[in-house]
């Protein structure tokens, strides 16, 4: 005998575990929004009010981001490709705006935005793993340097070309690994790869949020005072452990056992922390607090996906190495 809810779930065109994950996230957001509302009514004092206002702005943005991400994942491959392609575009724009490039780099930048970026996502769309994995690190690396040198300006040439390559690697190559998870062929998990993407984004974003929460509650000892003064050991350990626990708890939606899911979630959290730290160093180097102003309370899009940039490629390759069967040596 099946329950009506279960029958309704299995009649949906999308994966059942995905719907459950999404429902869980929405429930958490509802609870969070209620807490935010209660705090906004009760907290007194200027500093406390500012924190609560920032919290509520972040929550509002989370609602929008969850809705957009939910739609993208639910529409399968094409929705995810379009969403992450757009994220890459906006992130690259923020990155390049801060980068000290010159007029001579204009053509190289134009190619980065309008040829290399769409091409990278197209390669994922057609499932050409071999070229997807090397297009930017090999062809993009060489092409952008050649295009800039042809413009004939040698001032700060190495810094400029290195900056363009970093921009492409961080904003396009690394981000594109998130939808690339849909390419993996894992035995017994066919057609459910969207849950893998959901797992990555859930853990990486939850880790950010929980590090922030634990840091606000208990934070004392700074991890990297010169790079990111808001990051504390208490926040880091509390955030990573609790996000790892959530990752392990949703193992049923992934191809992993509970222990494997915990290991993967831990890896994602640690890589996410490293990504956030590196992006913080870049911001500090350029003398800005945020990459942009796109998302209220969060700063720019790059401020929101800094952890994902480093977590996505590592999660992809570790999963591919241990679970994918497409090109294993017999």
């Amino acid at each position, binding site marked *: 005998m099946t329950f009506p809810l279960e029958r309704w779930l299995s009649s949906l065109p999308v994966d059942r575990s995905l719907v459950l994950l999404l429902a869980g996230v929405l429930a958490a957001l509802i609870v969070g929004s209620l807490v935010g509302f209660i705090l906004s009514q009760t907290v007194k004092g200027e500093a406390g009010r500012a924190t609560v206002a920032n919290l509520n702005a972040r929550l509002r943005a989370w609602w929008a981001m969850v809705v957009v991400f939910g739609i993208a994942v639910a529409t399968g491959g094409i929705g995810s490709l379009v969403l992450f392609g757009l994220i890459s575009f906006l992130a690259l*724009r923020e990155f390049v*705006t801060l980068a000290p490039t010159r*007029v001579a780099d*204009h053509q190289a930048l134009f190619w980065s*935005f309008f040829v290399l970026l769409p091409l990278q996502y197209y390669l994922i769309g057609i499932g050409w793993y071999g070229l997807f994995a090397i297009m930017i690190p090999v062809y993009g690396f060489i092409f952008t340097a050649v295009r800039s040198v042809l413009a004939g300006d040698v001032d700060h040439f190495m810094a400029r070309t290195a900056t363009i390559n970093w921009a492409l690697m961080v904003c396009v190559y690394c981000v594109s690994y998130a939808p690339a998870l849909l390419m993996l062929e894992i035995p017994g998990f066919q057609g459910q790869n969207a849950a893998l993407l959901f797992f990555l984004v859930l853990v990486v974003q939850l880790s950010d949020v929980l590090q922030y929460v634990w840091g606000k509650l208990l934070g004392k000892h700074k991890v990297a005072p010169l790079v990111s003064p808001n990051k504390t050991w208490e926040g880091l350990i509390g955030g990573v452990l609790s996000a790892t626990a959530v990752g392990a708890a949703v193992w049923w939606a992934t191809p992993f056992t509970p222990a494997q899911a915990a290991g993967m979630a831990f890896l994602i959290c640690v890589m996410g922390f490293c990504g956030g730290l590196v992006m913080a160093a870049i911001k500090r180097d350029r003398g800005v607090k945020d990459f942009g102003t796109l998302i209220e309370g969060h700063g720019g899009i790059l401020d929101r996906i800094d952890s994902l940039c480093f977590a996505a490629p590592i999660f992809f390759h570790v999963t591919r190495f241990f679970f994918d069967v497409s090109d294993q040596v017999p």
Partner: protein
Amino acid sequence: MIAGALVKLAKVMSGARAIWTKPIEGNAQRIFFANHTSHLDFIVVWSALPAPMRGRTRPVAGRDYWMKGRVRRYLSSKVFNGILIERTPSTASSEEKRVAARAAIERMAEEMGTEHSIIVFPEGTRGSGDDVAPFKSGLYHLCKLKPDVQLVPVYLDNMNRILPKGEALPVPMLSRVVFGEPMEMRRGEPKEAFLERARSAVEKLRESHG
């Protein structure tokens, strides 16, 4: 509708964020004058204005460019409602140029009438974006003809990287449109002093927000 779509497109491409250092209100006639580094400058300033103000604000542009082809003609006459100015060929004598410039200024003053604002780029030509070049005297003569209008300095940041001089295709970076505090021409102010004061108003916005 086309205007709305163009405004959206310009905002997406330039990611332009308007920053008002002083709130500007009311229906006063204004001359927005800005530094000039890119073909997109006018549309970016125009897009950054609040909709009611945008409806009353006209660009000043070259007739030869905007009368060429149906699309440009449609855009300049129906969408931007541009004030089209005859440009003198570079082969013209200096006397011919002076007469033409005089006629252009009178034309602008006339077209502004009693309700329109305009956007001008007094450097006269697009620069590299490294500094704000000395202003041409047109702004001074226009202010003599229209002494009651408000002058609003505008600094365009990063446009030179979005579509630099000599490039045909834009790169989508984030830019900013910084509107400064309105100023006026002082009674009996000498031409050079006024033009330098106007230029330094834009330069100051660059230093504080660049």
